[in-house]
């Protein structure tokens, strides 16, 4: 336990929104970046539980095919005697992925943490365009409404996969979910695109123009670098998905034929345009997480980040390469083989900057005085799970290997190692780390560690096993593959994975209880409970409207831990070179 070491106990807590406004303007239609960040956070948390419930339903069907689901089965599928139907199964898979990617990981990293942290970490009072920022959140709601409504229309929600490949997604009669559900899905994606685009333009302008004096680009915390590059990726890649979705909408609603070969179009066109966005989206989902983890590891190892400039260069390299590798999702699509080879080479090159990052994290940990807080444990889980997910990614980057493992559970295992093992652990780490700044209270460390331990074990139990059955050829997106004789031997492993997944799902209730409980009963936090260097820890907890009660100035980089120049083991960015940290931190 490392909390409350700061020498000044409790600067008076300032209400997060002490400016005089009504409840609606203050908490609902707020233009304050912190409130918008928290709105993103709680909205995505709700969707996290919805998406998780869908995943558990998928796991139930895979472990015990066609058996009646306990409790919810009778309510949902009374017609089929409580069973999941094959059509419903494809819908579950589709909507689980859609919700987790578009409504959870991207908005919680870019929307919640991005909104909350960017102005605080660079020393600004708010975003460059607060009203636009509010709209970027409220454009999420039409998307929420479309996705929610799609569950209740005829035929059910979209079931063409989260990739929405034509012709399955374009022809209305192709599948039950290819009716109105698919149209609503596309509308939702267009709205999400608008929301993310508004947000990313705002982030870029803010980071470029509103850094505190002395906060040069190479003094920015890695979190800001991750969010900055993410915003660039979103700005360049999202319009392409929006254009592609508009074309799919017109194909469905007006009768154009861009993706239908009978009309002179080409289904591969969608795949190219879709992955032109959705591969950079993979980095949109991991780069802010990498940035947050870099900050957290350096803080709890009480050591400077190993190789700050190579870390920045690696993030830029990953983003740059990330734009020219989308074809590795299409090796089996009948794509031109010459392009396949190009995409393979570019994809394998990404291992280089990724390895730079991993070794720099390890270098940061090396010889550090590591404090195993909940945040640090989750950050360490991020690093180790990212290594596994990154290594299995190299397998499928090779075209020849991909032919074997394509569309098997190996892919599912890989992507969950990156998205859950990577991004989601980083979200947990970020929550434990910045919760005191968000709400002025500490989360419970004991339950945080219990949550971490159980999640980590169950996570590996669920997803590592997927690599094994994937190498055995077990196909993804099939409702009951164990019915085939050659896959029957995987049934025990499927049961094991489902038990782990259920355990992991219920473990998240601990997290929710800890989160909401700490809001009420958590110990009060002062400005800098973790003795961290970055600017947000010099503001009150929670920061008032306008964030800072003094002019923040950055005198140095954000990773001066255990510096020989000062007696304390941290050296805040805003501390003038001749002052002691206590005065600067508590102000």
């Amino acid at each position, binding site marked *: 336990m490392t909390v409350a070491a700061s020498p000044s106990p409790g600067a008076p807590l300032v209400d997060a929104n002490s400016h005089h406004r009504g409840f609606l303007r203050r908490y609902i239609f707020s233009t304050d970046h912190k409130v918008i960040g928290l709105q993103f956070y709680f909205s995505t948390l709700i969707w996290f539980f919805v998406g998780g419930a869908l995943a558990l339903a998928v796991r139930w069907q895979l472990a015990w095919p066609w058996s009646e689901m306990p409790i919810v089965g009778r309510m949902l599928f009374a017609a089929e005697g409580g069973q999941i139907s094959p059509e419903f199964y494809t819908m579950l898979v589709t909507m689980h992925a859609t919700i987790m990617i578009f409504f959870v990981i991207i908005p919680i990293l870019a929307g919640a943490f991005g909104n909350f942290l960017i102005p605080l970490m660079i020393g600004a009072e708010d975003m460059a365009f607060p009203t636009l920022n509010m709209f970027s959140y409220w454009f999420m709601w039409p998307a929420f409404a479309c996705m929610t409504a799609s569950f209740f229309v005829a035929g059910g929600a979209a079931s063409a996969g989260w990739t929405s490949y034509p012709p399955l997604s374009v022809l209305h009669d192709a599948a039950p979910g290819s009716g109105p559900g698919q149209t609503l899905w596309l509308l939702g994606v267009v709205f999400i695109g608008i929301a993310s685009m508004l947000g990313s333009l705002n982030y870029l302008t803010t980071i*470029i*123009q509103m850094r505190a*004096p002395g906060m*040069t*680009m190479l003094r920015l915390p890695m979190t800001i670098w991750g969010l900055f590059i993410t915003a660039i990726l979103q700005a*360049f890649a999202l319009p*392409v998905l929006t254009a592609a979705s508009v074309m799919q909408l017109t194909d469905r609603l007006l009768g154009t034929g861009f993706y239908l*070969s009978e009309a*002179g179009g*080409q289904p*591969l*066109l969608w795949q*190219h345009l879709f992955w*032109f966005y959705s591969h950079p989206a993979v980095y949109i989902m991991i780069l802010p997480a990498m940035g947050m983890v870099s900050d957290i590891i350096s803080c709890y190892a009480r050591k400077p980040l190993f190789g700050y400039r190579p870390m920045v260069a690696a993030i830029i390299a990953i983003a740059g390469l990330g*734009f*020219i590798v989308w*074809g590795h999702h299409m090796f089996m699509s009948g*794509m*031109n083989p*010459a*392009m396949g080879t190009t995409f393979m080479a570019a994809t394998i090159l990404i291992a280089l900057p990724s390895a730079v990052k991993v070794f720099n994290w390890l270098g940061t940990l090396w010889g550090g005085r590591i404090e195993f807080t909940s945040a640090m444990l989750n950050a360490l889980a991020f690093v180790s799970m990212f290594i596994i997910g990154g290594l299995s990614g190299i397998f499928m980057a090779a075209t020849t290997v991909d032919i074997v493992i394509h569309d098997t559970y190996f892919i599912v295992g890989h992507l969950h190692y990156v998205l859950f093992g990577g991004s989601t652990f980083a979200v947990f780490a970020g929550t434990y780390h910045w919760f005191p700044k968000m709400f002025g209270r500490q989360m419970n460390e004991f339950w945080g560690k219990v949550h971490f331990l159980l999640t980590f074990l169950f996570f590996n139990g669920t997803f590592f096993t997927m690599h094994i059955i994937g190498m055995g050829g077990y196909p993804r997106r099939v409702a009951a593959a164990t019915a085939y004789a050659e896959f029957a031997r995987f049934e025990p492993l499927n049961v094991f994975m489902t038990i782990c997944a259920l355990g992991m799902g219920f473990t998240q209730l601990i997290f929710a209880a800890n989160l909401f409980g700490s809001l009420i009963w958590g110990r009060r936090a002062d400005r800098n409970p973790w003795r961290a260097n970055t600017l947000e820890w010099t503001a009150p907890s929670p920061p008032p409207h306008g964030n800072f009660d003094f002019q923040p100035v950055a005198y140095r980089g954000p990773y001066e831990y255990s510096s020989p120049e000062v007696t304390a083991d941290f050296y805040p960015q805003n501390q003038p070179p001749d002052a002691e940290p206590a005065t600067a931190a508590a102000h």
Partner: protein
Amino acid sequence: MATEDSSGDNAQHVTATGGVGNYIAVFVGLCLLTGMSFLTTSEWWPWRDQPGFTRTFMMAVACAKALLVLLFFMHLKHEAGWKYILTLPACVMAIILAASLVPDVGFRLRSAADRAEPANNTRETTIERGQENASDQAPSDN
């Protein structure tokens, strides 16, 4: 980023421009260029039977027009170094995107058979694929 300008107030940065005469000159240039590309559809265009050249010419004219608008109407001629950072990446990405669609979508009707005998086999292949009309009413490159 290009320049680290430490001045806090950036509210009034009015870019110098060339004045009304300059705009009129650019306008006349744009009209002339539009006329030139329109001329390619007329009888007097000497390269009517060379669609490749005509199209290259028209795209060059379009690029010249876009450049005129960018430089003078959007004042990029007078801006500082940031203009490259904000315009070039998008243009490069746009070209990469369009170019990467060519092998799979642009050549979607070309099969291995076409490449083996490029001269006379195209039509049969399209008939086999049931894609398009076999009649000669509208050659594909007209």
